[in-house]
């Protein structure tokens, strides 16, 4: 038995999902897409069901990949029950989706979530009245406080096996209703019977929905009737159908809700400040600086703790194997990989993802997109690209996967390339350990700023290489909400999984390859092969290997560097300029293997090859630039 949670974005679906699913959730991809959905096996009154949390949709007419995946699920996976979650404070808008969903003829229960918010806004809803009008069970819920959730599922179980009563009782205008019926008749007389209700199909055909199919003669009849609707109403048929649904939702709202004076909301004042044309940017800077400062502060604490423990553990493990042998090299490589993930990346990634989930769930990120859209649009990017780019500071892999929220292929490509250019937590570790440690924290800050400039410039340039007018931003900015810890935890875990499942094994494998390469002295050939590059950048030939193997793991370049140079105090072997050049090169060039895999998944092989070549050229040029500028300044 499958139960689908369906609702508009930010309606609190995930909170409901979490309150019954706990942590025993799994994620999977929709068949044939990269869009993820969360599902969990839940026990409800002696029945076992798979509860699926679908991505938020505004209607069954999809405008982006996530939305069309949710729709495909509803049309093809035959859920036994739909739990339609509504933000009660946005009742009339949310009812449009409800009306569309009930046409599917699937047993359904309506969940009026955020009842407290509706009351604060002065909307008094009679759920009995609404239930009577919709002929569906309606349950009042305040999900973040757990109010009504139990009742919701009880009603859901009761509604099972009871498809909604025929929708005709909610009358459409007669002329449109007649057209719908005509298409329905065509469908019913056509030989290949559909599983979906004919009324639903008829409406979708009138909306010219490409996801539903019908026999050719039905299609041609639908085309004729569409044209008729357009002629009589003076606008496209889909718009006629949509306003019909809108009017109906409006009527339902009027008959089931009364408006009183809204309470004053302190969040309005807060939002006025945070979106202010001047103060908004001041706060944005302060919030981002505070965010990264907190992440790195907390991360370095964790790192010291974890790295020390793992270091001791691996030393004791290695002591049991004779040094210099193949077994020793293999074990050391494997342990390096484990340590790199657990001791270097995770300590920064986990606080980063928590901080990000907080900003996201509080509702601040859409404000960031709003504030940055003007600037990004000048560069040629979509304002929403800011979100994956910020994610890139944590780990490039989830950042690439996050580009799915962008509507166009070109914007997804640009955002994923730029997201891989910003230093992820592994590369930040290199910047801190080399530049901040040997040259001082201001130099590290300088590298971050320089990187930001190069990212902006790259965006500007790539946007011109692929000139296409980016579709303008249309983004709902939800009201601020206090985040629910369990929802945040699940979000962090789902993103962390992408690192643990996809990147960590590659990281361990990469370390193993490195260990073996060192064992068989393959590094000599790598150094020889790369000597033109190292010479160009003014680096000693011995660091060549580090550069090659940095592809496997970025922060490994650091460990490799000390290995290759044969010393732990890098500054005795490398000059200040060389340290900066090396770090800049490592920061920009080809994303690590795990990221490459994620890129191929998201933007395809050809684009990934382009991105890799671009970053390699960029890294070389920027390294050279740093060498030319810094040599006269730093070498006295």
């Amino acid at each position: 038995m499958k139960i689908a949670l369906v609702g508009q974005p930010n309606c609190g679906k995930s909170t409901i999902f979490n309150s019954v699913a706990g942590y025993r959730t799994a994620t999977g991809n929709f068949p044939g897409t990269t869009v993820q959905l969360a599902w969990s096996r839940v026990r409800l009154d002696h029945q076992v069901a798979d509860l699926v949390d679908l991505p938020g949709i505004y209607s069954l007419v999809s405008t982006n990949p996530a939305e069309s995946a949710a729709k495909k699920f509803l049309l093809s996976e035959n859920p036994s029950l739909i739990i339609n979650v509504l933000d009660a404070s946005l009742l009339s808008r949310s009812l449009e989706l409800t009306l569309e969903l009930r046409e599917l003829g699937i047993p359904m229960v309506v969940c009026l979530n955020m009842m407290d918010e509706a009351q604060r806004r002065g909307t008094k809803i009679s759920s009995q009245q609404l239930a009577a009008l919709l002929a569906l069970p309606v349950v009042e819920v305040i999900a973040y406080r757990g109010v009504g959730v139990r009742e919701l599922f009880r009603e859901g179980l009761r509604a099972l096996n009871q498809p909604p009563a025929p929708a005709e009782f909610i009358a459409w205008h007669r002329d449109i209703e007649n057209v719908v019926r005509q298409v329905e008749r065509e469908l019913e007389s056509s030989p290949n019977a559909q599983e979906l209700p004919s009324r639903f199909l008829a409406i979708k055909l009138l909306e010219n929905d490409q996801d539903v199919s019908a026999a050719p003669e039905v299609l041609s009849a639908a085309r004729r009737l569409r044209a008729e609707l357009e002629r009589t109403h003076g606008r496209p048929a889909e718009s006629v159908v949509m306003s019909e649904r809108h009017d109906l939702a409006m009527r339902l709202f009027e008959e089931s809700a009364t408006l009183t004076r809204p309470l004053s909301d302190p969040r309005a004042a807060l939002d006025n400040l945070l979106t202010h044309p001047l103060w908004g940017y001041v706060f944005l800077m302060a919030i981002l600086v505070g965010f990264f400062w907190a992440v790195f502060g907390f991360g370095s604490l964790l790192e010291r703790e974890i790295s020390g423990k793992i270091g001791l553990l691996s030393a004791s493990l290695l002591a049991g194997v004779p040094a210099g042998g193949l077994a020793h090299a293999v074990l050391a490589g494997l342990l390096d990989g484990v340590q790199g993930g657990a001791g270097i990346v995770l300590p920064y990634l986990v606080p980063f993802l928590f901080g990000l989930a907080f900003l996201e769930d509080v509702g601040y990120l859409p404000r960031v997109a709003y504030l940055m859209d003007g600037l990004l649009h000048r560069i040629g990017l979509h304002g929403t690209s800011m979100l994956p780019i910020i994610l890139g500071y944590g780990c490039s892999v989830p950042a690439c996967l996050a580009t799915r929220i962008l509507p166009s292929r070109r914007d997804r490509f640009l955002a994923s390339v730029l997201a891989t250019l910003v230093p992820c937590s592994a590369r930040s570790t290199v910047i801190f350990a080399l530049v901040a440690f040997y040259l001082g924290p201001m130099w590290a800050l300088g590298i971050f700023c320089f990187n930001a400039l190069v990212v902006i410039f790259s965006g500007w340039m790539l946007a011109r290489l692929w000139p296409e007018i980016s579709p303008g931003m249309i983004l709902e900015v939800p009201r601020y909400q206090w985040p629910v810890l369990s929802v945040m935890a699940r979000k962090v875990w789902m993103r962390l999984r992408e690192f643990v499942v996809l990147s960590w094994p590659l990281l361990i494998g990469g370390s193993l390859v490195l260990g073996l390469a060192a064992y068989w002295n393959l590094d000599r050939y790598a150094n020889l092969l790369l000597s033109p590059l190292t010479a160009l950048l003014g680096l000693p030939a011995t660091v060549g290997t580090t550069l090659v193997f940095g592809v496997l793991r970025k922060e490994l370049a650091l460990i490799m560097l000390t290995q290759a140079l044969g010393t732990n105090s890098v500054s005795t072997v490398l000059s200040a300029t060389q340290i900066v050049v090396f770090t800049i090169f490592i920061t920009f060039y080809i994303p690590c293997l795990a990221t490459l895999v994620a890129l191929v998944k998201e933007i395809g092989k050809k684009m990934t090859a382009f991105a890799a070549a671009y970053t390699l050229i960029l890294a070389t040029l920027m390294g050279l630039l740093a060498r030319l500028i810094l040599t006269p300044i730093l070498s006295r």
Partner: protein
Amino acid sequence: MPSLTKISSNRTSKLTEPSPAHTLDKVRAGQSVKVVETAAGQAATLQLAQLGIRAGATLVVRRSAPLGGPILVESSGSTVAIGRGMARKVLVQSLE
């Protein structure tokens, strides 16, 4: 009963109203407007309509970002950021 019937009545009064139409990007923060028409592409028109920005709807412009950034409008309880270029395609009338 609430007074939300005005949304449907607006549609008919649109032809008789004298105030000239202009585009949404020109509206100053704090003003209320009524949408006359969205002349964007099919997908964008749909997306706007889903968020309540459609012919006849009343919007309040809350903020207008600097550097040609988006504008922030409130429509029937929800807040939407609309890119400047997109706002140029939304025809509105001022409401006093």
